[in-house]
């Protein structure tokens, strides 16, 4: 496994919580804060921090609305985020493929 292959791994997505957020948003198309919190078992503050990082990187778009007078935060994937996530999955596949090749050699 070369260093170049490891460099393909996007550090922004690689953190477990952010990988979880991105995976869920990519699977469901949109996810609200409560849903992400429940699925990922994260605290409000922790989840909020990771969402902000992904939003700053323009990987997700965050919409804040009100539902029944309660604030509601909904996250959507952006085109940039979708591409980054696809690249991340491809990098993981490459890592598996390459290490399998190394084992045979």
């Amino acid at each position, binding site marked *: *496994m070369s260093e170049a*292959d*490891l460099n393909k791994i996007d550090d922004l997505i*690689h953190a*477990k919580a952010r*990988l*979880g957020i991105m*995976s*869920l948003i990519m*699977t*469901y*198309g*949109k*996810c609200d804060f409560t*849903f992400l919190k429940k*699925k*990922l078992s994260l605290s409000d503050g922790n989840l909020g921090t990771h969402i902000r990082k992904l939003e700053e990187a323009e990987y997700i778009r965050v919409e804040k609305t009100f539902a029944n007078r309660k604030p509601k935060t909904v996250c959507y994937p952006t085109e940039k985020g979708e591409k980054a996530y696809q690249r991340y*999955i491809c990098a*993981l*596949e490459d*890592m*598996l493929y*390459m*290490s*399998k090749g190394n084992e045979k050699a």
Partner: protein
Amino acid sequence: MQTKNENDPREQALADLEYIKHLTFRSRQYASESSPYFILWGVIWVIGFGSMAFGWKEYANWIWGVLSVAGLAVNFFIAAQQEKRDPMPRLISKQFAKIWVSFLVIVGLFIVLLSTGFLAFEFSYIGLYAVILIAVMYVLLGVVLGKQILLMGIWLGILASVTAIWLMPYSSIIFAIFGGGSLVVTGLILKRWRHEHERG
């Protein structure tokens, strides 16, 4: 990421993929979530076909009209509640959309066959045709929702065929008892199954 050996890229990649799978895998029991729909439409069948079997055929239009509107309203309410509680993955939603389009095409073809006279039309056949179309709908939905729904479609197809071939004069009572009854019983079994799944 936590891995067995953080320096091993393969272990790391496997752990990442395992985590993604764990989060996004279709762990929802779609079939068990369909229990309220089975019970709802089962009860409607029992009332609708039962009233026809007991000789209220002159009110059949009204009875089925009211039951259908009420059934659809409750159906949409349940669906909205489920979607709010646990949304459906994009892939499943897309598959659902394709299934509904396919079903509408089949219903359209059915209407063409009826209106052109290629398919015989009598008042007493309406129930049979409805059961056939619902059997087709369940078979299509079974592709996405699981074998329980598929098996229900096959069962309704067999019931409709046997009734059409040998038992047409008794179609209303058969569809009320065996059609509606089996929908209610399946709904109750799935409900129990879901509770057991949630507990265990």
